[in-house]
């Protein structure tokens, strides 16, 4: 079953040339897709369009068959009414590079507030689930801590728990380890690998090529706002066909 698709998305920022030049991506249930590509190629912009943080100039955005956006008759994008978007927002989660935890909320409140205040779920049930999630993230003893008291790796695990507490059907990650000290990236990659084993549907923008190869089912190589090459992760990373992919991977290995 297709969980997410974005079709022929175009996006430019006021002055510049197109950041996304009509690219498409579709993700099936249980699939883990890694997006790699040079800096400035539009990876974050793609995730931001997918998570409604940015509006596309044109294109189509669909979650589980429900259209969030499509091209109107004049070729410009039309977004679904607020109510539909609200429903769609509960289908995805986004983990940011720099966590964006709420500094004035404890760890537990960071994780439970949106399920209670936005999804209007039962407090007891949400707390129970949150504590289970924190346990899974190895943060049982940090429930009452505040974000500033945690290491970067711990903060990122809280932000993953916060996203998971909304019970999303798909989780997007934008370079979840890039803001971390090298010795802390491991713990995040470990958490993501566990999620992959549980068949969580994920789209991960990452510079950790070896991690992408192991965890992702599919790797997408992007450059200058288009997909240059995509396919089985082993194949793309070990045996790329496109020259640009080869050049990019070669540079990373230096």
């Amino acid at each position, binding site marked *: 079953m297709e969980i997410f698709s974005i079709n022929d998305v175009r996006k430019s920022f006021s002055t510049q040339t197109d950041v996304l030049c009509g690219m498409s991506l579709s993700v099936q249930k249980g699939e883990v897709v890694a997006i790699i590509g040079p800096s400035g190629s539009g990876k974050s912009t793609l995730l931001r369009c997918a998570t409604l943080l940015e509006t596309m100039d044109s294109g189509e955005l669909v979650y589980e068959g429900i259209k969030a956006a499509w091209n109107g008759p004049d070729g410009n994008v039309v977004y679904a009414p607020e109510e539909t978007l*609200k429903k769609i927002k509960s289908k*995805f989660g986004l983990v*940011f590079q720099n966590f*964006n935890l709420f500094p004035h909320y404890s760890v537990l409140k960071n994780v439970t507030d949106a399920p209670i*205040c*936005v999804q209007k779920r039962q407090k007891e049930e949400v707390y129970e689930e949150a504590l289970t999630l924190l346990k899974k993230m190895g943060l049982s003893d940090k429930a009452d801590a*505040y974000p*500033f008291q945690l290491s970067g790796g711990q903060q990122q695990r809280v932000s993953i728990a916060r996203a998971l507490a909304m019970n999303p059907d798909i989780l997007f990650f934008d370079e979840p380890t890039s803001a971390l000290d090298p010795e802390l990236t491991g713990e995040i990659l470990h958490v993501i690998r566990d999620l992959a084993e549980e068949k969580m549907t994920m789209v991960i923008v990452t510079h950790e090529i070896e991690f992408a190869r192991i965890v992702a089912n599919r790797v997408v190589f992007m450059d200058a706002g288009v997909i240059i090459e995509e396919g089985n992760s082993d194949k793309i990373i070990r045996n790329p066909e496109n020259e640009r992919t080869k050049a990019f991977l070669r540079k990373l290995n230096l």
Partner: protein
Amino acid sequence: MSLGLMLNKLSEGMATSVLIFVLTLVFSLPLGLFVALMRMNRHKVLQNLMRIYISIMRGTPLMLQLLVVYFGPYYIFGIKLSPDYRFWAVIIAFVINYAAYFAEIYRGGIASVPSGQYEAAKVLGYSSSQTFLKIIFPQMVKRIIPPITNEVITLIKDTSLAFAVAVTEMFTVAKALASAEKTMTAYIFAGVFYYVFNLIVAFVMENIEKRLNYYRL
């Protein structure tokens, strides 16, 4: 005049000063937030109106604003003023002046909350009012406590400007006593009053700041 009588008279002035202080804060703190939100509104007209209002309030002396508020209704509209209006003119002038200063502080505080906070809230599905009230506002408060403290302390001293429209606040009373009794005593008491008032306010603000120390931005 006995010291007791003098203190008695001064304490009336003191009560007026404290009342001006409290009422100004009670009205200008929320009004300032409202002004800040309009100043940050998308509508250009509203934005510019607020910009002009703030610039006038900050660019002219409070004393002048007070005189305009007090005498304006009479000179401009020919309205006869009741003696009670003195006090309310002070409150109105102070509130609109301080609201402008507070608005700029709020605006800075709101602008300094990183955009990632809005984005995280948006992705989690918070409505824009929830985002402001639950996520942005508390963080703004923490950031603006020091500049707000400065303004509040200035306000204590500014209450003596009510003297200009003959409201019998602390300073007015002290001056009358001093000239009647030909001694500095009343001034010394007045000085002590303002100083202690300041100490109390500083203490309260410091406590608020400490209470918000359970988290860091």
